[in-house]
């Protein structure tokens, strides 16, 4: 078991594993572009994509091209970015809070976003308003959590978690109140469906705004990924190792919050991913964030795109993705836990 090289994880060298996972993401993405009400053969998918940069003769119907570029591609991009973003935020938060049970929603971002979306559905009912409100309310909830944690002043990390629970409960209660008073035929189902998550509304325009936000957060977390190990050993240890813990904590919280607020604003609340993908990543490469974070980005992206493809093709109408992420993910996770023995 403890032979040469990395002895935890599944025993594949991290570099090789990342190449395999990138290939897997490529295959899943191609399948996602093929499937739907209009089936497009894989060769045609690649031809249509290549035609944008290479001089290829158009032998396909123009509708295929618009389906691919205006519907499936933005949705694929949303799946990749939201899946990768929520997963890397979850992994970074688990390191920061030294707790493998933490998800990116721990500081109240989804509870805040939920309330924002519910308000927007009740009073404006435009998609743009829902996205803007959920993003702003998500950020506001995390700001409240951080402000509340400062009031108590002691052991900051623990107070952040507790403050997150307090703020989350408050916002969730407000959302429940809105659901209770909402019109049960129109607004209430809209709120409920939004809370269950969907990538259905992701358009090219949305991705142009939200994409860079999520991408920036992911890149910054990747750049500081080794330092997250230091925080994971405890604040005092990190400080003894010369880390400016307050600044590093702030960077992680800002990145993870922007990623999740931006994700939630286009996809609604997709649970489970940010909690479990980091665990699957640890089963694959071990806990060193230097390898864990890139792996989690690839696995999270593949997973959400795969699940979203099932969500929109399995039955006639679309299944809310928040339901499927857990329904598909729970058995996979149970199986992986049984297969490899993690060291905790």
């Amino acid at each position, binding site marked *: 078991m*403890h032979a040469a090289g990395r002895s935890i994880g599944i025993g594949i060298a991290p570099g090789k594993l990342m190449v395999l996972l990138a290939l897997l993401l490529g295959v899943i993405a191609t399948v996602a572009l093929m499937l739907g009400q209009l089936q497009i053969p894989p060769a045609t998918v690649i031809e249509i994509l290549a035609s944008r940069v290479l001089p290829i003769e158009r032998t396909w119907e123009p509708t295929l091209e618009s389906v691919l570029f205006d519907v499936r591609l933005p949705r694929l991009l949303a799946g990749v970015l939201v899946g990768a973003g929520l997963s890397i935020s979850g992994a970074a938060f688990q390191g920061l809070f030294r707790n493998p049970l933490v998800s990116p929603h721990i500081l109240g971002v989804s509870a805040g976003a939920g309330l924002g979306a519910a308000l927007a559905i009740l009073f404006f009912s435009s998609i743009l308003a829902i996205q803007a409100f959920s993003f702003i309310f998500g950020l506001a909830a995390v700001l409240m959590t951080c402000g509340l944690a400062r009031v108590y002043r002691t052991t900051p990390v623990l107070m952040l978690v507790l403050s997150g629970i307090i703020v989350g409960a408050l916002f969730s209660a407000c959302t429940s109140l809105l659901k209770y008073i909402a019109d049960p035929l129109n607004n209430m189902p809209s709120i409920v469906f939004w809370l269950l998550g969907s990538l259905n509304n992701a358009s090219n325009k949305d991705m142009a705004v939200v994409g860079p936000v999520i991408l920036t957060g992911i890149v910054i977390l990747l750049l500081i990924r*080794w*330092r997250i*190990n230091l925080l994971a050993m405890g604040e005092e240890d990190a400080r003894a*190792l*010369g880390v400016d813990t307050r600044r590093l904590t702030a960077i992680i919280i800002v990145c993870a919050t922007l990623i999740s607020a931006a994700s939630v604003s286009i996809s609604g609340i997709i649970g489970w991913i940010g909690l479990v993908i980091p665990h699957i990543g640890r089963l694959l490469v*071990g806990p060193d964030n*230097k390898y864990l974070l890139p792996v989690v980005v690839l696995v999270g992206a593949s997973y959400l795109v795969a699940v979203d493809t099932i969500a929109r093709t399995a039955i006639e109408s679309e299944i809310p993705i928040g339901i499927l992420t857990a329904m598909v993910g729970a058995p996979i996770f149970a199986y992986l836990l049984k297969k490899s023995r993690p060291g905790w």
Partner: protein
Amino acid sequence: MTALIEIHNLSFSYTGAAPHDVFSQVSFSVAPGGVFCLLGPNGTGKSTLLKCVSNVLQGWHGAIRLDGRDISRMKPADVAMGIGYVPQNQNSAFPFLVRDIVVMGRAPHLAVFASPSTRDREIARAAMETVGILSLADRPCTTLSGGEWQLALIARALSQEPQVMILDEPTSHLDLGNQVRILRVVKSLAGTGMGIIMATHVPDHAFIVATEVAIMNRGGLSRKGAPETVITESNMRDAYGIDVKVLHVAGGVERKACFPSL
């Protein structure tokens, strides 16, 4: 000999203001190769003092000078290149490998966006070799015993390549063999010219390794000096409230030791 680290009139309270109820007016210094042992009852602030000196806790008053430089004016990373800290707590929420933990000691030498290079891994490897835990390199830390953890944390501090190492009760909760193994490592590090500051609950350990001993009590250092002059029967009674005989042990040991009576 000039001091490596100098602590001058250090005072601390958790509120950050007077009265300095944890400790006040603490002064001592350690020269290269010196081993400064801190004795004293539970709850007198030994750990807090060590955390202040290692820059883990901020908000203290007074001066801490490392090689003549005021550490409050230094960047955290620069302090960590000069002072290594071995904490008392040993736990990790994640099963990091021992070598991944030891290489964390390279953090102050690395840029914010960097991760350890091959050279950093070699330095970590040498540190593990020095403390004799190379065979543990690929073990998840969650499977370590108390003694192995302590040695891993010493190796991590050693990877910082510090001039001063601070150890907070490095022998507590360890069996006799591991206690002696730790003391041996401490002594050999001092032999290389490193300055050592360590807290301990065992006066005999101070007799074995210390060049200077201080007793922390009632918010300050009540006694300070050579081990033989500080660890006396009256000082022990004063500090711990029990009767202790301090006797010279012959028969090949040739060292003083404490013998408490019930």
